[in-house]
């Protein structure tokens, strides 16, 4: 019981902080809009896939990108928490490390979901139409990305002691995950090397699942996309809770 109350406290803190940092929310909305309007609009003037406009085509990928950035950096933020004495106040509470990890993770998921919801509302401007089914599938996949990548960020952040590695994480984790996922291009007719890499990247299946639900014509059946997403999340949650147990205070 007390662990659950503690979990609520940790989540509540992240939620409150998120609501108060309005500049962060604004920035996280403007970034995907630039992708959709400038990049999607520019390239979309030249190409389209059947009846599907390019902006609509990259829409699920851009939601994923936003969630990916928000979640990973939310997790990495723990490096700053650790350097200030603020996080010690949490570590000294009579709560298990697992509770602390899950509380942080749920907090990060909530932030990411709220941002994604704003983007979802903007979907119709980019040629997206929703059905209750497609909306449901979309939200489930976003939840999977948020939970998985927040855990990934927390796992890395709990083992780092400074911000020096942040640039590396952007170059070697976030951008490859995004660009090699089929977020910006169709998954068929790829050169062999790219074909192989996209099939290894778990985010490929998540984008495919979202796009399939919104626009039809998925590359993989839904159960494959969902299956990969579930494994992706479970593995990273496990990694995160182990990393938190081992984290030095």
């Amino acid at each position, binding site marked *: 019981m*007390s662990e659950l*109350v*503690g979990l*609520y*406290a*940790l989540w*509540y*803190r992240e939620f*409150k*902080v998120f609501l*108060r*940092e309005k500049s962060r929310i604004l920035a996280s909305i403007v970034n995907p809009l630039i992708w959709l309007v400038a990049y999607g609009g520019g390239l979309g003037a030249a190409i389209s896939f059947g009846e599907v406009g390019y902006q609509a085509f990259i829409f699920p990928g851009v939601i994923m990108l936003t969630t990916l950035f928000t979640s990973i950096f939310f997790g990495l933020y723990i490096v*700053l928490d650790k350097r*200030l*004495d*603020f996080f*010690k*106040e*949490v*570590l*000294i*509470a*009579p*709560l298990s490390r697992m509770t602390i990890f899950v509380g942080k993770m749920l907090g990060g998921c909530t932030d990411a979901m709220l941002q994604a919801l704003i983007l979802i509302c903007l979907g119709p401007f980019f040629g997206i139409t929703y059905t209750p089914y497609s909306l449901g599938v979309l939200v489930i996949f976003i939840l999977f990305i948020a939970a998985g990548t927040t855990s990934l960020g927390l796992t890395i952040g709990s083992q780092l002691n400074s911000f020096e590695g942040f640039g590396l994480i952007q170059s070697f984790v976030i951008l490859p995950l995004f660009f090699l996922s089929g977020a910006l291009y169709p998954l068929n007719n790829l050169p062999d090397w790219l074909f192989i890499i996209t099939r290894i990247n778990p985010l490929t299946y998540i984008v495919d699942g979202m796009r399939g639900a919104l626009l039809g014509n998925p590359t993989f059946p839904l159960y494959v996309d969902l299956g990969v997403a579930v494994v992706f999340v479970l593995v990273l949650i496990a990694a995160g809770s182990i990393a938190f147990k081992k984290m*030095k*205070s």
Partner: protein
Amino acid sequence: MIGEDPLMIIKVEKLTKKYKDLTAVDHVDLTIEEGEIFGLLGPNGAGKTTLLNMLATLIPPTEGVAYVNGYDTIKDPANVRKSIGMVFQAPSSDDILTGYENLYLHSLMFGVPKEQRKKRIAEVLKLVELEDRANQRVKTYSGGMRRRLELARGLLHKPKILLLDEPTLGLDPQTRGHIWEYIEKLAREERVTVIITTHYMEEAETLCDRVAIIDHGRIIALDSPENLKMKLGKSMIRAKIKDPKLDLIKGLNYVTKVEEKDGEVMIMLNDGGSHIQEILCNLGEASFVELREPTLNDVFLQLTGKEIREESAEGEIERYARANGR
């Protein structure tokens, strides 16, 4: 529980923390009684914070054991954590939240029963006189107010032991005096045992019932501030003398100790006022004379051959500033 001595709320045996090439805490033995205000005094890097963090279960010891409120810090950290409240060196409250919210979150994390939360928060806010600022964000607080909030937070779950790591670091003298008043009030009214690390002599002298002087991870002296000073003598004379005749002085029966260093003579004696005339006559021509009671700084100087430099906390102050400017 330890059983043998129920009054000892803290018991530490051969507690040691080694890092790669540094022994931060070196086989420390210590017992602290319930209700005491106990000071850990020493220069920066002496191992005070490391010792405190081991008591708080934040870092595991390399060797030795510590019992806090009867619970083993290694085997039973959850119960230790329930027994302690801690105020950290750097600000640890969330500046984006209000004072009330910080306290509320703490009450949730530390398992304060639901029906007591509001009442406890109101009580501690009153104790540190922050009631009228409770609903403003911590960002708008001064350094001293933030410290008071963190003190209040440390008390929220009614801990039996309060661990304070340099509680007045970086505060101006007036605010420091205020914080001391609060700490004394807490020890009296809430009957908590207080363990405080400091490198401010005055803090240790005015606040603490007993003081352990720590250097290089070892306790080199432990007693009440009065007794520690008494060991040097009731008073001391510091003088600059050309060609001092020390042999004569050493023979006087009320002189306990004589030292010469860098052209300065230090004389410890049982009663300074009535003998200063005689000493100066015998000593030689003085260009400077000071008669005073010994301070803990003199004790430290005697024990280690160096002074605790009060302004040497640069690293920590920078840390403090950084944390504040977030």
